[in-house]
């Protein structure tokens, strides 16, 4: 327990101390939130109805998909995990604790957004706060788990950026954060079901806001949960102590299994 507390405290502080992590955990999502609040609510007043979940999902993407993988790869490349292994730090802690601290940072940012977006930008508050809180946690966990998996399978930091952007960029456009999913053409709607943020947005809107949704929000929750658990399990299974370690338990392409729930989601969309 003492080891867990020490490790968690250190990782949490690193998320604030390290300039890159601070940027991805707080400055980028909160800066984007402020900008969207100032600009988007003026251009498109309808944005106020989805602003809070949209900005929370964006923050989960920034912290989980962009912020988490690179430090994992850098630590592996710097031989830090080798040192951890020698000193008895289990692989599960090496992945679980950064994932957990990322969720924690994301919850703080989400709380700031949820509390301030209404009074400052006139954003609509959720009808079901309890469900809203659970969905915030689920969204943060799923994106952090996918980020951990990207960090584990990336050969280097350049590959990390590429893999993260493959999910991040289309998600920003098609994930239902900037424009409602029902405005998208049907074929694009089907494609957008491959993206985790689409399911987060549908779950928030359907279950916490009581709005009409394109996808079944309960199915969206199950898909997010399954994908998050699969991603985290695969990250532990495929974890490599150092880049010279040529003994792998599985091929990195196994990571694609974490996307199977979304493929399923695409067919039921």
């Amino acid at each position, binding site marked *: 327990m*003492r*080891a867990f*507390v*020490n*490790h968690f405290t*250190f990782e949490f*502080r*690193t998320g604030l*101390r*390290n300039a890159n992590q601070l940027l991805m955990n707080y400055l980028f999502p909160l800066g984007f939130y402020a900008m969207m609040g100032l600009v988007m609510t003026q251009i498109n007043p309808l944005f106020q109805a989805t602003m809070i979940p949209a900005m929370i999902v964006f923050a989960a993407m920034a912290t989980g998909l962009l912020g988490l993988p690179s430090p994992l790869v850098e*630590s592996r490349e*710097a*031989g*830090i995990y*080798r*040192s951890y*292994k*020698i*000193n*008895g*730090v289990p692989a599960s802690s090496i992945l679980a604790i950064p994932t957990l601290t990322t969720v924690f940072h994301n919850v703080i940012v989400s709380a700031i957004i949820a509390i301030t977006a209404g009074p400052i930008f006139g954003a609509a508050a959720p009808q079901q706060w309890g469900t809203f809180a659970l969905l915030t946690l689920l969204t943060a966990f799923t994106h952090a788990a996918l980020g951990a998996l990207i960090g584990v399978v990336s050969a280097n930091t350049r590959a990390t950026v590429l893999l993260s952007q493959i999910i991040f960029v289309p998600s920003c456009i098609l994930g239902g954060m900037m424009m409602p999913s029902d405005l998208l053409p049907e074929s694009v709607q089907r494609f957008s079901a491959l993206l985790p943020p689409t399911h987060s947005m549908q779950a928030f809107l359907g279950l916490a806001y009581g709005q009409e949704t394109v996808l079944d929000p309960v199915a969206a929750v199950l898909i997010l949960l399954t994908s998050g658990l699969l991603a985290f399990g695969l990250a532990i299974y495929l974890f490599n*102590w150092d880049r010279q*370690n*040529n*003994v792998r338990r599985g091929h990195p392409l196994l990571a694609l299994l974490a996307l199977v729930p979304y493929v399923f989601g695409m067919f039921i969309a």
Partner: protein
Amino acid sequence: MSNERALSVRGFQKAYGDVVAVSGISFEVRRGEIFGLLGPNGAGKTTTLECLEGIRRADAGELSILGVDPGRQPRRLRSLIGVQLQTSGLPANMTVREAMRFFSAYHGTDPRYDLLDRMGLQEKLSTQYEQLSTGQQRRLNLALAVAHRPPVTFLDEPTAGLDVGSRAELHHLVQELRDEGSTIILATHDMAEAEKMTDRVAILLRGKIVASGSPRELTATGSGLTKVSVRTEHSLLHEAGAAIPAVQQRVVQEEYVIYFSTDPGQTVASILARIDAESDKLIDLRVERPSLEERFLEITNAGGAR
């Protein structure tokens, strides 16, 4: 030092694909001993250390540290060994205090701040790892490696890149650890360090042990030539003159004449007699046994190492 075995390696083999890194080596290290693992780059030192540390699995052979197989009993191994890695191994943002707490917690022991005092890091508790000097980083790594009081400690190039003062300080700390009963396995390129610090060494070349023993034994089994360097006031020895007994080779190097002798006693007596006979005056005379470095080069050159 006791005769009890702390570590034993029997017929150890390891290959990476078609490349054989270590080819059936065997050696033992006794409790309380400082054992040096020497060899040029690619000789198999790091592979041997990594398998002993449980980072990699041996392909064949038996490895044992105090009766524990590093590949099969990694959990039991953790409390038995301390490892100072050659490269960083710590997160850049981790402070000295956090590092001590972090690793002590995973070893299930109390943080050893006394050790940080001893390593001269008491003023650096809140300093992040990346802000420490190379010498301070090495001392911190050593403190972390031994904080859980492991009976066996592995040091991989512990003084590489350190200045003279930091090197001497680290040597002193390692000697102290040995005096407290630790067994130390030292991998180094620095022959002077190995000669000064170790009780016994093994020289690895292309995955095989080509020589082993105490530094004194190893230097004695080489060409056996002792270097006798002489400088006189009138440099009359620079003239070849009559042959000096037991001398295999004679070299003039600036103001010195250097004789490589198989019998230094006889050679020195003869040199002194000649200086006296030629009314010259002795200014400097040095008798040097071959160093471990010279013996190492002799062995590795004979083995064709680059």
